[in-house]
């Protein structure tokens, strides 16, 4: 009886969550748009040279961004997974920091870096080019690959690699022929998330790409918000969703692999060589360190010199804002906790269904819960506004709507870290436990849970960071003034002239980064204890 109830909840909770907060709103808004001229637009799209250009650019920039991110992040993933060094946990936590940075801040920082490197004009110009977009995408998404692949890699049995080396394979051969294939589920999982993020990237494209560059995402926004043409926006939103479905379908196919032998006890990794550390940190420093350094420097710049004034100002309310920046941070923190709790619950249950459920159900879950990550913030925001307006779902002015929207984007992160790990739990381990007399419940508690917990905290860290930094969907939802979030406050501070406001915005961005770093670190300390349980 309890088993049936548990199964019902495992399926029911994710279905209810996705159905009410994503599918129903999105179907509502798409239906509205299609009946309002969207169908004609949809039919006309293939014939439009502008659309073909935009669609092609959207796809290739996302693909190239993803490949670049994976290539840049893999050495780092190896470092955190297979090497021991002081500050390893810190590095892993720090990598999530870019995730919370509002694009308006990062855009400004990148432009400043390009300027200082002399690349804002001339023959090596990066400003307002597609290169700037690609670099910023690597900056934002590095953590996804580093952490998702890193955590998986850490649990991989190093035996096959050692055997390959003993048999005379070079390190490069070993990596390409042994390690890479074994990493495939995790790399595919991370890459599909990065791809979706880049496919729907908004601020980076507009700010760093400049006014000459457009993607499907920016076009949806332009048509709906600026031109008031919901029909054209709907046609584009449909195309976007279909593209996302295709990408996720292929990505999920690549991840479906079993029994590569994840273990619960991680062997003591060798100490990292200094050159390996230096090369990795140098690469990460170049991509992630420079823009962050610019931000930090600016946050201390005040009154013509360096001081803590901008940080002190965070506790004082400026006339433009309903709250102090610190209070806005507290709001964001609370929203992020709620969003993470929802994302972990929904994503955790859905992952169990994906791994242990019936085949058809498993595929549908695996696909469906990824979709919110690839849907436009415009689609989700407007959809919620027109769908969730009747009791008992009159949630438009509810304080829960913002965390719910954030959780929608957090669930895919939880699932993409958890599913490959659950799939790879060594069946021999479970069989051995069963032979020794452990009941299925005990197997789940003593074998599955400790291994899954390791992946779950990685996913939870992402869900938390995503919520802390979320701007797009939040801005579409009605909020009372005292529910101001930190990214919205930051945007407002940067929207009025005056160095004082700008300095405060930079300090707020830095505090946001520090909070994220520490929160992820705190979440990850649980990871160690869970692993040591066995």
């Amino acid at each position, binding site marked *: 009886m309890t088993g049936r109830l548990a199964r019902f909840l495992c399926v029911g909770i994710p279905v209810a969550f996705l159905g009410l907060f994503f599918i129903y709103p999105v179907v509502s808004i798409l239906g509205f748009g299609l009946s309002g001229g969207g169908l004609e637009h949809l039919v006309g799209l293939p014939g439009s040279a502008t659309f073909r250009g935009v669609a092609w650019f959207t796809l290739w920039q996302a693909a190239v961004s993803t490949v670049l991110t994976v290539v840049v992040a893999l050495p780092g993933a190896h470092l955190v997974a297979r090497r021991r060094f002081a500050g390893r946990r810190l590095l892993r936590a720090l990598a999530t920091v870019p995730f919370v940075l509002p694009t308006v801040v990062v855009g400004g920082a990148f432009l400043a870096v390009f300027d200082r490197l002399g690349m804002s004009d001339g023959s090596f110009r990066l400003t307002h080019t597609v290169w700037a977009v690609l670099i910023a995408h690597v900056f934002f998404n590095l953590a996804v690959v580093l952490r998702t692949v890193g955590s998986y890699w850490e649990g991989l049995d190093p035996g096959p690699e050692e055997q390959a080396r003993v048999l005379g394979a070079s390190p490069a051969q070993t990596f390409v022929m042994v390690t890479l294939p074994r990493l495939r589920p995790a790399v595919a999982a991370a890459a599909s998330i990065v791809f979706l993020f880049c496919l729907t990237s908004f601020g980076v494209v507009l*700010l760093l790409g400049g006014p000459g560059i457009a993607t499907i995402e920016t076009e949806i926004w332009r048509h709906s918000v600026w031109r008031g043409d919901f029909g054209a926006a709907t046609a584009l939103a449909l195309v976007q969703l279909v593209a996302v479905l295709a990408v996720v379908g292929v990505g999920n196919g690549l991840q479906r692999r079993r029994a590569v032998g994840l273990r619960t006890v991680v062997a003591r990794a060798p100490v990292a060589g200094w050159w390996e550390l230096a090369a990795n940190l140098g690469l990460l420093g170049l991509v992630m360190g420079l823009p962050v350094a610019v931000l930090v420097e600016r946050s201390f710049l005040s009154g013509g010199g360096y001081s803590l004034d901008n940080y002190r100002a965070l506790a004082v309310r400026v006339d433009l804002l309903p709250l102090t920046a610190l209070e806005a941070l507290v709001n964001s923190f609370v929203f992020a906790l709620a969003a993470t709790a929802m994302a972990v619950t929904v994503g955790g249950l859905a992952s169990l269904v994906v791994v242990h459920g019936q085949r058809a159900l498993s595929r549908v879950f695996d696909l469906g819960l990824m979709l919110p990550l690839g849907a436009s913030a415009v689609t989700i925001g407007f959809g919620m506004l027109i769908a969730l307006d009747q009791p008992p779902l009159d949630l438009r002015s509810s304080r829960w709507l913002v965390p719910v929207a954030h959780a929608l984007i957090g669930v895919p992160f939880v699932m993409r870290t958890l599913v490959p790990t659950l799939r790879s739990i060594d069946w021999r381990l479970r069989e051995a436990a069963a032979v020794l007399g452990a009941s299925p419940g005990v197997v789940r508690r003593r074998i599955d849970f400790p291994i899954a917990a390791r992946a779950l905290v990685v996913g939870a860290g992402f869900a938390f960071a995503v919520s802390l930094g979320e701007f797009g969907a939040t801005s579409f939802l009605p909020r009372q003034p005292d529910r101001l979030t930190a990214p919205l406050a930051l945007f407002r501070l940067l929207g009025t002239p005056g160095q004082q406001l700008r300095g405060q915005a930079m300090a707020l961005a830095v505090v946001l980064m520090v909070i994220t770093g520490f929160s992820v670190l705190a979440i990850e300390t649980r990871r160690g204890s869970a692993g040591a349980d066995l």
Partner: protein
Amino acid sequence: MRFLHQTTTPAALFVLAAVFVGACGAGNGSSTVPISATTGVQAISGQTVTLVTHDSFWVSEGTLREFTAESGVEVEVQRLGDTGQLVASAILTSGDPLGDVLYGVDNTFLQRALDADLFTPYESPALTGVPASLILDPGHRVTPIDFGDVCVNYWIDAFDDDLPEPSGLADLVDPAYSGMLAVQNPETSSPGMAFLLATIAEYGDGWEEYWSALRHNDVSVTTGWEDAYYGEFIAGGGDRPIVVSYASSPPAEVIYADPPVDSPPTAVLTDTCFRQVEFAGILAGTENRAASEALVDFLLSPTFQEDIPLNMFVFPALEAATLPDEFVDFVKLPDNPHVLDPAMIEANRNDWTERWTDLVLR
């Protein structure tokens, strides 16, 4: 709860209004006086009105409480996105509006909102204190609450006797000012749109030629205000001394200066300004008509109007409203700002921006 609310409120209103009218004696020819004046405070006291507005809306802590103290009406503020997002959301939810009063639609989006029948007419008695030039809807479906001018700003120290600051739009295409101007894309930025409208108001059909000349003179185009002002303009460390911003930017440069300054480092070219007017309107479908009217009246009261400048950096619509010192000392408002009919803007904006994109970006 909802059911109760829907049925009892109009009934209670009716009874109270009847009592009130009976007590004062009917038929004194006051049929044009707004409902809020005839029903009195008792009728609406205890109600809550929802004010839907954009994310830039904010007034001092006590201001809305004063309204509650006077009228007994509670105000719930719901903020949402920027002006474009706000108007689009209001249109999408017009069947079941997000609130009772919407504040924040401007003259560049006004016609779109009117075409969607978002508002129900209300002529506030307080409009007598507002200049006629701000009252853009003769049917009073919307009420002007504030205005702000989008103007070309320049960095004062970048100009001297050898090269004086430009005097107006015409100078900006002069080769002497080549590579100095930063503007925003009108398809992604509200000040960018306003500046395009200023050039159309000034040059009529000649605006395309003007923009070709601006492009030839190396104008820099950014996506939004932030990257123009902080990225390209000298104020943020850029190298361009001329930027499209607001008439209220110079006082902000003093109020939020760091280190403190006595006068702004920037100034405004008053001949380049386009006037943006922001309106409030009672959303069609409201169940709190009388309380909504009272709120619109309050938005035009000196209490609210005088609180606008330092919180939102725009100007009060009420002529008699006292301005803060910084706005008196450091703002030069144009005598004749550029204006365009909202209906003309809505009918042409998509064509204009497409032409503009071809001319300036392609």
